[in-house]
């Protein structure tokens, strides 16, 4: 019996020692797997939770992991240029190694480039076709190609007899070259089809109210179109829902932009015929690569074009699956 008493005491002692060890040597939280990174990069994005930016950041982080760089994501409130300038200046003064930004037309990118160069910080642009002349890497999708791809889908959807309403995103007040190139691409593609035309073009603000107002205009009067080409990612599902609500499936074809989960769902249900989708992941990836190459003095070409996808009923399941894997 006494031996059992000692056994119990020794076991208790061992248990307490183990508990004490677990308490004292608990794992420290929030320590990055990389103790030291080669580069610290800032990527300035709009303060939006769109699919494009999610995929963009995914690609950027993937490149960062490969090239041993740390990517810091700085979110902005969309449309405020002062905020962008201030954020870039903060990054420059904070002595980060590189900054990637999406330049809007009002942004004095040249000034920022000069300041960055003065302080030894590398800049890179993404989806900034307005700033192609700047001597910094620029990774973007070709606006003209967006237009042609959208037009192609519109022709397929309507069988060549396309009366299209074109909806573009207004990033700033003036008509930008970006929008012009998109329109040009559509028109040039339509030239090969005598019955295809752009009936009207609308440029709407970024907020959803603008889209609602436009839909009221379009669907509130006699329908003189059979196709809507919406090159605004967030407005695409809204147009699809209005077509559904107004029982215009089959009467009005919708060509959208982007790969929001709602957009893919509508494509799968044949409410949206197809969507033009930039490879946001590749854009993010190439942006980080371009920055690091610049830091290593391996200059790439200043402009890199990213791929475009046409998402239709035939291949939408692949995109849905990819989205689900990304979420998982």
């Amino acid at each position, binding site marked *: 019996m006494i031996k059992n008493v000692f056994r119990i005491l020794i076991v208790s002692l061992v248990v*307490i020692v183990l508990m004490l060890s677990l*308490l004292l040597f608990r794992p420290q939280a929030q320590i*990055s797997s990389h103790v030291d990174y080669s580069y610290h990069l800032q990527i300035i994005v709009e303060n939006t939770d769109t699919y494009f930016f999610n995929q963009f950041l995914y690609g950027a982080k993937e490149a960062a992991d490969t090239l041993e760089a740390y990517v810091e994501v700085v979110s902005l409130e969309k449309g405020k240029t002062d905020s962008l300038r201030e954020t870039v200046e903060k*990054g420059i*003064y*904070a002595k980060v190694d590189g900054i990637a930004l999406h330049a809007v037309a009002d942004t004095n990118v040249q000034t920022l480039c000069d300041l960055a160069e003065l*302080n030894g910080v590398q800049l890179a642009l993404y989806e900034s076709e307005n700033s192609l002349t700047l001597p910094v890497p620029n990774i973007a999708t070709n606006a003209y190609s967006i237009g042609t791809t959208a037009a192609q889908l519109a022709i397929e959807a309507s069988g060549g007899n396309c009366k299209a309403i074109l909806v573009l995103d207004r990033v700033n007040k003036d008509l930008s070259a970006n929008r012009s190139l998109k329109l040009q691409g559509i028109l040039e593609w339509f030239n090969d089809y005598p019955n295809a035309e752009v009936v009207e073009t609308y440029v709407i603000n970024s907020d959803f109210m603008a889209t609602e107002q436009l839909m009221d205009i379009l669907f509130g009067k006699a329908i003189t179109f059979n196709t809507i080409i919406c090159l605004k990612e967030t407005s695409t599902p809204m147009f699809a829902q209005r077509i559904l609500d107004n029982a215009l499936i089959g009467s009005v074809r919708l060509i959208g932009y982007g790969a929001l989960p709602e957009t893919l769902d509508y494509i799968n249900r044949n409410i949206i015929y197809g969507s033009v989708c930039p490879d946001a992941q590749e854009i993010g990836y190439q942006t980080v690569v371009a920055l690091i190459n610049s830091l290593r003095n391996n200059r790439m070409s200043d402009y890199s074009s990213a791929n475009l996808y046409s998402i239709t009923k035939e291949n939408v399941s692949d995109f849905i699956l990819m989205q689900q894997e990304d979420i998982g």
Partner: protein
Amino acid sequence: MKKKEKRYSLRASLIAFFVLATCINFLVGLYNIFAANISVQDISRLVDTGRSLSKASQNISTLQGDMETYLFSRSTFALQSYYNSRNLVQADITLLQEKATYTESGIRHKNLAGLLGHYLDTVEQVMSDKRNERAEEYIAGYQLATQEYQYIIDYIKTTMYSDLLQSTAQLDTAMAEVQTRNNISYTLFFSATGLVIIMILLFSFQTTQPIMRLAEHAKSVSDGNYDIDIKTPDTGLEVSALYSSFDIMVQSTKLYVDSLREKQVLEQELAQQKIEGLEMHNALQVAELHALHAQMNPHFIFNTINIGAKIAMMQGDDVLCEYLENAADVFRYNLAGLDEATLQEEISNVKAYMNLLTTRFGEKLIFTCNCETDIDMNCYTLPRMTLQPLVENAFVHGVSQIETTGIISLDATQTDDAVVICISNNGNRFPAEKIKTLSSGSPEPKQVVPPGHVSGIGLFNVIKRLRLHFQTDRLLTIESNDHLTKVTLTLPLPKKEG
């Protein structure tokens, strides 16, 4: 082969037990202390960042103010204050760099350290331009520094807000961990305390139980019970040694006591035998002494009696001759000692004696003797002078006291295991007190031999000699009433040798 279990001394067991119990309690206390410290550290860490950022914000605000003061006043005091503030901000930069990690919150510290460092450079340039009186440069520099200062303040606010959100989220987790740790600490504390108490009780019982059992054994032994089963317990060396020694001691004591008892019994038997021997010797001496008293010159008496018998025979007096011959036989038998005699000899002696008496008293005394024919008179032995005193007693105290004819009878019969001799007389009643005294086996009272007794041997002597000869009591019984007194001797037959 079963491995022999190692035993430890009681002292070692006690020391080990208390050391273990103390260690357990100590470690539990240590756990509680560390858990509390870690909880405090976790909570402190949540507010630590905000505290350092707040301090940095104050320092940089002070630095900005000192710069402005110097720019406006160019005083030495302002310059000194500026350098002090600068050192504080430099310390803040060092602290932020130490905290900088490549995590979502840690990277902000890195950025802030960079911003502060750039700001310090800008301010230093402004101060230098001011001292060197480069107005345009320091004015532009001041604007830049002010802008940077604003950036830093905004960044600190943003960082503090982010940290606050993060801390709030982490606070719930931290509080949950603190609560869990507290629960574990309480559980551990009470469990350890309860366990140690239970172990103390168990250990005490197990340790003291053998000792208490040994005490019970000792008490049993002290009460005289040596037949105890002492099982050596599986415990410490000292207790085992104690048990072994106690067992040996009990066994030795038991043997010694048994031997003492045996010795005592033997001594008692020896004493008893000695006493019986002495009693026999004493009885014989008394009988012999009595016989000696009556013994005169045997040769003279025999010669006298024989001459008398011859003279009587020569003169033709047969009665006298027979009387004198019987007298000679009686005297000769009395003088032969008190050893053993056959039953035949005893009865012959009684007949000779009674012949004397019947000759003397004639018709006033009648004697009858009836013996069974199957009694082997010559082979059955008994102490000499056993029957005559009884017959003599029957005459002297019985028939001689009555007026009518006295009858004395001697009857001898044999049973399966005894010879029964009955001497009866029709004389006076045998006193009941004397019957009781004779039956109780009380010591022979000192008495004077009454007149008329030839042998001088009393009933007590006869009974004593019979008892010593046959080694048994209840040989003689007396029944008496007004007209008949019976003295019955029941003499056991010798056991046949198998």
